[in-house]
């Protein structure tokens, strides 16, 4: 491991200034991904700026009726928070589906968004990888790609984003807030991750040196009936091979609103907007759900060994939307007013 300096930041402008003074610095949150990558030489920072003591560890209701989640809130605290569990249950489920209890206690929300792919070629410095060394090639396309992307990939990279949390955030239109030397800014999560194209090493549109300060969840009454379902190769403590965050509001058999996002199928959380468009205003039922999934997945381009994901995602859409449509207590008028009442408390 390369030797590095270490500084603890106690306020946001101080952290941003430290990074501005050292181009090879990185922010350190829980370290569950960064420290691991430093051990293998994938990451070689000259300075770590520890952001764990920054005053960004709160979860608060917004005036609009949503939630503001600080960047240093741990995964554990996010998943245990009563308002997260009440208003956005799929977000709590997504966080609980990721990693282990130990890692969730360490990992932070900001770091979760910026974690790197677990593609075996990316994490092995002896192998070529366009994400790690631009222009060196992508061995996954001809090699091990059972768990790689079926949507939005390119000839330069087929890696998937590993976060469960980000999939639920994508479904709920989260906004990422950040701070730079020039002041604060914000980005909708839908625009936060770059398309892969020929620059897989550039993963987000965050300005250089920006520090993520938090996430804002807009009010979403539909999210009160939501579900995150994750498929993996063992029952627990593994990355997804396919996952889905879904929320559904049905009245009189007609879909009023639906949210769908896919995980482990692309370089970013995949919001299934085409499926949502087809379902909205239409009937519920396995046939309608399957047709919407097929429309969304028409853009899928499978590699020789990951075509199973197309079927998997189709089945997940049908199964999870069927489950949600059969649940009692879909968000009717009472649910909506209750939520705003909670926010005011």
């Amino acid at each position, binding site marked *: 491991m390369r030797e590095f300096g270490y500084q603890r930041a106690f306020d946001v402008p101080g952290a941003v200034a430290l990074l501005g003074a050292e181009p090879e610095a990185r922010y350190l949150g829980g370290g569950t991904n960064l420290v691991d990558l430093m051990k293998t030489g994938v990451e070689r920072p000259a300075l770590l700026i520890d952001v764990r003591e920054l005053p960004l560890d709160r979860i608060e209701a917004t005036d609009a009726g949503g939630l503001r989640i600080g960047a240093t809130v741990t995964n554990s605290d996010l998943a245990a928070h009563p308002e997260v569990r009440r208003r956005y249950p799929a977000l709590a489920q997504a966080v609980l589906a990721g990693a282990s209890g130990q890692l969730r206690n360490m990992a932070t929300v900001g770091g979760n968004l910026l974690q790197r792919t677990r593609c075996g070629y990316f994490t092995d410095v002896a192998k070529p990888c366009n994400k790690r060394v631009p222009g060196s090639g992508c061995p996954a396309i001809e090699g091990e790609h059972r768990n790689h992307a079926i949507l939005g990939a390119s000839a330069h990279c087929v890696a998937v984003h590993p976060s469960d949390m980000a999939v639920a955030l994508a479904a709920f239109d989260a906004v990422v807030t950040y701070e730079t030397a020039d002041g604060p800014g914000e980005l909708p999560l839908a625009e936060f991750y770059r398309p892969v194209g020929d620059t897989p090493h550039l993963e987000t549109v965050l300005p250089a040196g920006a520090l993520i300060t938090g996430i804002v969840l807009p009010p979403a009454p539909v999210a009160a009936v939501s579900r995150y379902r994750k498929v993996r190769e063992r*029952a627990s403590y593994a990355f997804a091979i396919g996952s889905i965050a879904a929320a559904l509001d049905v009245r009189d058999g007609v879909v009023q609103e639906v949210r769908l996002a896919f995980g482990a199928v692309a370089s970013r959380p995949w919001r299934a907007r085409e499926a949502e468009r087809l379902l909205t205003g239409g009937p519920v039922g396995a046939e309608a759900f399957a047709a919407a999934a097929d429309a969304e997945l028409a853009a899928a381009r499978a590699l020789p060994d990951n075509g199973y994901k197309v079927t998997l995602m189709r089945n997940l859409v049908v199964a999870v939307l069927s489950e949600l449509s059969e649940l009692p207590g879909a968000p009717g008028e009472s649910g909506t007013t209750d939520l705003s009442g909670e926010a005011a408390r």
Partner: protein
Amino acid sequence: MALSTAGAITLNINGEKHTLPVDHRTTLLDALRERLGLTGTKKGCDQGQCGACTVLIDGRRAVSCLQLAVAAEGREITTIEGVADGERLHPVQQAFLDLDGYQCGYCTPGQICSAIAVIEEHAAGWPSAVTADVRPEAEAPPLTADEIRERMSGNLCRCGAYVAIVQAVARAAADTERAVGAGRAAGAEEAA
């Protein structure tokens, strides 16, 4: 900028302060084992995947192999050496002994530290990935074998002693609950 890549730190471990110079690359795990002689905490994968190095940091379980020692300064660290009350074993330690919750014993310190936290997390009402309804209005899930398996999934046992580990965690949780209940009853009597 000339960066110092090493320095003296003070770690608070099991209630005792230890000051030591460290290279910033030193993990808490290596500081415990190689520098302070606290070898109860074990090194398995050194990649955060096996849980053998689990300790409690500010009361919460964490893998010490991914925790830089310098970043642990100022925090309360509890290792397996610090969980007993003097000569009296922690209820989780006792349950692992009584029910043979191990074979070779290498993963056991991590299993025990993790289980101590699992019981506290469950008592605090935290849901898990196998909790059917995570909403706060739902009844807290009982600590079933399924819940224990999910909550303990960050601790691998290559001997495969899982059956007895689950039983030990369940018994320790029940013992803790009884002790808390008895404490409450005693407190109520005193108040009366």
